[in-house]
């Protein structure tokens, strides 16, 4: 693993009575693309603003390359940010915007113009260098903002939901540009977003936050397939969460009994459930097998079909389990049309024990 660039050491941030970030511990490594994701108000933007020096931690330490940053004013840090609103200076043209950071560092006029033009070229907007900021399109402005932040060649770049104002097609293109840029430059990107697709598509590691706490840190695939708690399971994608009590354990297998019946769940990771404990497990909507005839054995629930949501090649079915709870299944549209399901018709969902993911009592 690469060296630690930034360390959050028991960082707490309070605004009056409100605690925005609570005892946060995590490390950002050199050269990694890390995404901080969570619903609005989870503290992700506050975390980013603390990194930029726009907020000071109430407790704990933020260290960058071992140096405590808590009291360092924003202009003495080298932590440029790409803002959600872009915050381009409307009274300067594209080139002058990019030159701003260099000018503040005392680079002479000729050198900074040269550098700014290089970066505008690199981001493929060299031809717009002398254009008024407000005459540029959303995507072009985005590139100017990126160039403005990168021109000083920082060790770390902070991005605060930079793509949220763009339309879907442009988002995909900007994503691949950001990923490419980050690989080429080898600098650390800290990317705050509420969008799972953005975070999963670009980041090496994802930090999921909820109400000021870190809910899980991990690689996108791990977070998607192995959520550590109910919040993460609900937040990422279509998961079914089934709760009950531990009935028996045997080696790497645990049996959980609840209002929907008994289910065998393969144990992974650190959990060591004890018989009688409350426990939950997650079964992802796309890992479920759907049939109209009753499977012979194994984990299954008999449901009735309530509604379906067609989004293209994949369809999400919303089923009702016997206890009234909702159960979601994702299958290929082609597969579904072969099955001839009726509204309120009986269907069986089943899954292999190693498809389910144990998340403990939470």
């Amino acid at each position, binding site marked *: 693993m690469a060296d630690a660039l930034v360390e959050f050491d028991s960082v707490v941030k309070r605004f009056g009575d409100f605690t925005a970030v609570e005892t946060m511990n995590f490390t950002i490594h050199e050269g990694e693309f890390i995404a901080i994701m969570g619903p609005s108000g989870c503290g992700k933007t506050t975390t980013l603003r603390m990194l930029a020096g*726009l907020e000071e931690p109430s407790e704990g330490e933020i260290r960058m390359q071992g140096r405590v940053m808590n009291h360092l004013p924003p*202009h003495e840090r080298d932590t440029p940010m790409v803002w959600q609103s872009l*915050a381009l200076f409307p009274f*300067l043209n594209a080139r002058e915007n990019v030159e701003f*950071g260099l000018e503040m560092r005392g680079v002479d006029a000729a050198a900074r113009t040269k550098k700014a033009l290089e970066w505008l070229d690199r981001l493929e907007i060299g031809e717009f260098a002398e254009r008024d900021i*407000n005459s540029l399109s959303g995507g072009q402005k985005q590139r100017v903002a990126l160039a403005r932040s990168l021109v000083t060649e920082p060790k770390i770049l902070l991005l605060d939901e930079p793509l949220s104002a763009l339309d879907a097609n442009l988002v995909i293109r900007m994503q691949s540009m950001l990923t490419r840029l980050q690989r080429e430059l080898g600098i650390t990107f800290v990317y705050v977003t509420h969008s799972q697709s953005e975070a999963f598509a670009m980041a090496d590691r994802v930090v999921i936050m909820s109400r000021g706490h870190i809910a899980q840190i991990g690689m996108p695939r791990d977070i998607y397939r192995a959520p550590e708690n109910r919040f993460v399971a609900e937040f990422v994608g279509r998961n079914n969460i089934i709760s009950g009590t531990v009935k028996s354990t045997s080696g790497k297998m645990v049996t959980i009994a609840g209002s929907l019946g008994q289910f065998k769940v393969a144990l992974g990771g650190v959990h060591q459930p004890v018989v009688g404990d409350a426990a939950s497990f997650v079964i992802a909507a796309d890992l479920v097998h759907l049939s109209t005839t009753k499977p012979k054995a194994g984990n299954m629930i008999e449901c009735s079909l309530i509604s379906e949501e067609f989004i293209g090649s994949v369809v999400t079915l919303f089923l009702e389990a016997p206890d009234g709870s909702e159960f979601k299944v994702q299958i290929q549209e082609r597969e579904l049309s072969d099955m001839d399901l009726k509204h309120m018709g009986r269907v069986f969902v089943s899954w292999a024990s190693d498809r389910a993911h144990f998340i403990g009592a939470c």
Partner: protein
Amino acid sequence: MKSDRVLKWFLYGYLALVLIFIFAPIIFSVIFSFNSDRFPTIPLGSFTLKWYETIWQDPDVWEAARTSLIVSFSVATIATLLGFATAYTDYRYRFKLKPLYLALILLPPTIPLIIMALAMLAWFAKIGLAGKVASIIIAHSVLTAPFAMAIIRLRLSQMDATLEAAAWNLGADQWRALRRVIVPFCRPAIVSSFCLTAAVSFDEFAIAWFISGLNKTIPVIILEIVTGNIDPQVNAIGSFVFLTSITLVVIAQVVLMTRDKKEKVNHG
């Protein structure tokens, strides 16, 4: 449909009446300033420039014009500076007594002019400034700073709140961010605030009359000429004053409006 048309014409008529009431006296004043008759009566006499010649040759009028220019230029500078500082304080900082602070700043225009003029006179007499040009500048600055503050505050309220933080983030300390980001962003408001406060000061009579002493401003000298007798000179001076003020006000409006339009087009 028909009632819409009626309403439309009624509103046009109403607007026309308002404009006539405002501008008719000014237009007549300008017309009579070129009229050879001593008294403003119709039918008009012949076209003449003699009233303009009279004031051109009157050293008192020149002196008053000089005083008025010095005063309005200084007032515009001071009031705009004060206005900017207070508006920025309001924009940037949160503090306990802020409502009181704002109320205090916006107070001067609510005080009746005569009362303010008397109070100023008493105060300046006490500190030995009465009758000096500086006293008019101070009094007018107090009177006009709230206008400057209101104009600049409005502009600041339109600013993307992250703009200043973006400047810090790019390595600007607070002072440089102020100079390189806040001031340029507020430039249209600063220019129009400068023009408007200059215009208000240039026109202001009540306070100037009370405290000017021997340093008469243009409005004061107009009153002096009128109290002596009816003299078309007044129309000539009035036309000049009107031209100066309306120019300043129009500049202020144009600067504010072109900026707005430009930004609106681009946001759309």
